[in-house]
């Protein structure tokens, strides 16, 4: 058992896979001796050497594309994209090439790669270094999307992603990097597409993802004092989407809330809510409420950023109002 920070768990998870499988390589800007911009790969270069850990030029199309070519021909690259906003400069490679190639080629080609990116807001970085891009990725057929909220899930989902023969985006949330968690000894492997109930409850189901999971849990604590018992589900993955865990919970609680960091339109919660409306509407007793960031770019000033992000107090307030 080791206590590690979320930040360290990224490198921890990668090391587990680099150690296990010689076809795994790590590639990205400053991932080598520098230990990554977020210091998440510290020690990996020293441990695995320049033959496994590759520094790249600032060429997102080139190194994401190269990772794809390598994945097509026998390697299992882990790409570190740095800020998730940078998907914008390699979106062709991700959405048009990596996602579609197996399907378009009639299954001839496989692309078993992982793209890790530092996702989300909270660090006062402004609109181009703070986005939550998981909903972009979810909209493209052919991409799997994992969004861990704890160190042990970072390790487990990273392992699942590396071992998966499909392309997987692992979006770690930079607001959580300083948080800590226990990682048990031995091999840690999670399963893609399995949500977990973080807190059982009876009054309402709250589905959250990434950094919104601890916020939702704090909101549940605030409301507990008022006699409201929230069940908090950590979705953990958007593709595959664990619909059954959510529907099973809603069947018990009769109410549904989503807590999403993404801007309002077409956030992952919209999809989830529409599925619940289609398949479990008769379980629902009152309005379904999506708690999201307003449909604006993320502002930089602390007071403004705090005001747009769903934080525990605001989440509790919305739920309190909706439950009446």
């Amino acid at each position, binding site marked *: 058992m080791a206590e590690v920070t979320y930040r360290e768990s990224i490198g921890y998870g990668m090391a587990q896979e680099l150690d296990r499988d010689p076809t795994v390589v790590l590639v990205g800007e400053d991932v080598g001796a520098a230990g990554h911009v977020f210091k998440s790969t510290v020690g990996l270069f020293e441990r695995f050497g320049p033959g496994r850990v590759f520094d790249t*030029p600032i060429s997102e199309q080139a*190194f994401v594309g*190269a990772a794809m*070519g390598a994945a097509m021909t026998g*390697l299992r690259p882990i790409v570190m994209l740095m800020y998730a906003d940078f998907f914008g400069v390699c979106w062709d490679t991700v959405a*048009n*090439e990596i996602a579609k190639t197996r399907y*378009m080629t*009639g299954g001839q080609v496989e692309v078993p790669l992982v793209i890790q990116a530092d996702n989300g807001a909270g660090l006062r970085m402004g609109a181009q270094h703070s986005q939550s891009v998981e909903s972009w990725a979810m909209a493209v057929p052919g991409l799997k999307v994992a969004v861990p909220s704890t160190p042990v899930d970072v390790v487990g989902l990273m392992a699942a992603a590396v071992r998966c023969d499909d392309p997987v985006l692992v979006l770690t949330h930079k607001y959580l990097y300083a948080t800590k968690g226990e990682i048990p000894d031995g091999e840690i492997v999670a399963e893609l597409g399995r949500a977990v109930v973080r807190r059982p409850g009876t009054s309402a189901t709250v589905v959250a993802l990434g950094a919104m999971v601890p916020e939702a849990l704090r909101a549940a604590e605030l409301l507990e004092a008022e006699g409201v018992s929230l069940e908090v589900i950590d979705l953990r993955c958007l593709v*595959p989407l664990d619909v059954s865990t959510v529907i099973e919970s809603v069947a018990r609680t009769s109410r549904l809330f989503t807590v999403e960091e993404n801007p309002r339109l077409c956030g992952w919660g919209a999809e989830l809510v529409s599925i619940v409306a289609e398949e479990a509407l008769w379980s629902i007793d009152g309005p379904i409420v999506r708690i999201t960031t307003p449909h604006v770019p993320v502002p930089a000033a602390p007071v403004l950023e705090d005001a747009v992000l769903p934080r525990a107090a605001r989440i509790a307030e919305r739920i309190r109002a909706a439950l009446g």
Partner: protein
Amino acid sequence: MTGEREKGSTTMAMQDHTGLSPGGATATATDASVADGADGADVARDVRLAIYRRQMLIRGVEKRAYDLFLRNLVRGTSHLAIGQEAVAAGFATAMRPDDYTFATYRGHHHALARGAPPAGLLAELVGRTNGLMRGRGGSMHITSVAQGMYGSYAIIGAHLPIAAGAAWSALYRRSGQVSVCFFGDGTTNIGAFHEALNLAAVWKLPVVYVCENNLYMEYTNTRSVTAVDHPAADRAASYGLERIVIDGNDPDVVYTTACVALGRARAGGGPSLVEALTYRHGGHSRADPGKYRPEEEVKAWMTRDPVPMYRERLIGLGVASSELDALDQEISALVDQATREASEGPEPGVSEIERDLWADGGASWRR
């Protein structure tokens, strides 16, 4: 170390559908024997016959594809390489069976040159289940991994980094494979071209970038929107690479150039960037009559058609015309047979829609 997972051509390249024995021609002209020059003077007879055969096969299948289009059997779009056969034939003849080819939407010629089955290619064009990609890819995405044809990519520039990645993997696995990446003159103005060239040079990757300079990007002359005369070669210096411009309609020149570049890549010498001057006889894509091209220019290039030119050369070198006639007839029968197989293939059933999105063979996104 990764042989079992690599679906590449090392095990499957034996299924070459050019009718040539795989690697046979290459074996007679080793990389070393041509390392000193790329003027195409000393190409062995059986290599030349192999090149001739590849050119004829490409010409035959591409003309057939055009016929099928005129009969409204090929829907969507398609981009033919009639006139550009020499680049594909010269390179494929010099490549090892397990080398990788990456091409663009104008990629039929490269697939055929590597030995992809013509029936599978035509069936893909007419949207049948026996198509190379089971009807899910279409003309712009011809892929035939069994012969090392790692795909045709329809977003300009996208495959240059991917080809670099295949080369990176070959280097990592110490497999000796080389990745060869074909693209057009217009493609040299997109960022991915420059990013890929830089990465390939910095990592000394065994990749050969081949610009098929046919002077046009769709309907615009590339020179008119490019800062330099030679869109690929004049950029080579930026990446520390040699400036190479060749006659892309002379298959012997292409072949010897390819041997040198492939040899350099295999020996650890890193990437090459080759600009091959060529011309497409038709328009950019299916319906384009190509009227934006000056008549004189078209005429001049038509007299340099690589297919009849090469036939003349072979006859001049003492190959009996009866031998070439027999070969032509064989190819023509092969193209007819492929057309029959293609048109007799079943239309895809709707069950195809939810196949092969994921490694488990399905397309499910939820549980």
